[in-house]
């Protein structure tokens, strides 16, 4: 119990340190790498929460492919961030403090962490856990929920990914035209 809490605290503090480091660093390459570490730490947190599927996705997508895509972007844009113009820092600070205070105030309304009678445990989750062995009979009922009970949502997600691919190709996928000497850029 104590060890578990220590791991939680360690991972959360680590996340906070990485976020501050990302904000303060001007070198974009380092920032991207830190984002990768951030995702990996989040994946560990999801594993601590027993959400293996979410942790897996976070590790593969967050730490893996998005890091690579951001690196590819940096190879086009250059790795140094433009120096900040020194303007008034009081207004942004006030906005951040007020937003943060609102969020902390909102946390107080959340049900206590891990209580068995929280809404999240009493709504549809019991039905999935009790009925999915009879109705769908796959051992990993996260898959049953995603692919069958929420099949329509997952279809939407696949369409989103497809649309993202189409969008990127329409915007910057024009390599062949360049060779013909036509410049549309």
């Amino acid at each position: 119990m104590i060890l578990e809490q220590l791991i939680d605290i360690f991972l959360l503090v680590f996340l906070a340190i990485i976020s501050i480091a990302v904000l303060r660093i001007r070198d974009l390459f380092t920032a991207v790498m830190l984002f990768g570490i951030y995702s990996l730490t989040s994946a560990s947190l999801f594993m601590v929460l027993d959400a293996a599927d979410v942790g897996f996705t976070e590790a593969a997508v967050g730490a893996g492919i998005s890091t690579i895509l951001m690196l590819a972007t940096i190879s086009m844009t250059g790795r140094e961030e433009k120096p900040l113009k020194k303007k008034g820092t009081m207004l942004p600070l006030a906005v951040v403090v007020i937003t943060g205070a609102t969020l902390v105030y909102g946390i107080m309304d959340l049900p206590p962490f891990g209580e068995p009678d929280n809404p999240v445990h009493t709504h549809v989750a019991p039905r999935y856990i009790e009925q999915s062995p009879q109705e769908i009979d796959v051992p990993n009922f996260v898959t049953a929920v995603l692919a069958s009970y929420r099949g329509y949502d997952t279809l939407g997600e696949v369409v989103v990914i497809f649309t993202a691919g189409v969008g990127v190709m329409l915007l910057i996928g024009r390599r062949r035209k360049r060779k013909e000497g036509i410049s549309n850029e």
Partner: protein
Amino acid sequence: MSDHLILRIVGKFLIPYILLFGLYVQFHGDFGPGGGFQAGVIFASAFVIHTLLFGLESAERIAPQWVLKIVAASGVLIYALVGVAAMLMGGNYLDYDFLAADPIAGQHIGIILVEFGVGLTVASVMMLLFFTFAGRGEAS
């Protein structure tokens, strides 16, 4: 990166295992963590490594962009058609119960097909995104 001998050898050694692990995650998603989405990303990452090691042209010979575009679209299409098939067999859209005589078998068929569609689309879109970005980087 072709002059880095150690990276090239280790990368070459890793690629088949990454592909195999991607397939494992794809088809073992019913039993353990994983599924089409994660499998697609893992599968695509093998091609990313290949591109980093051997260059974009070599990777595009293995997976030409026009093939990837067709695969990306057909993944979505497989998913949507499973729903239409369920409708034709008398159920609601994406109600896999009607895909086979036994509802449980129907669910299993539906989930495998749908996850396969997800895997195809995710893998090919991720590869297309990376190829597009990498090609653009080389151009400028």
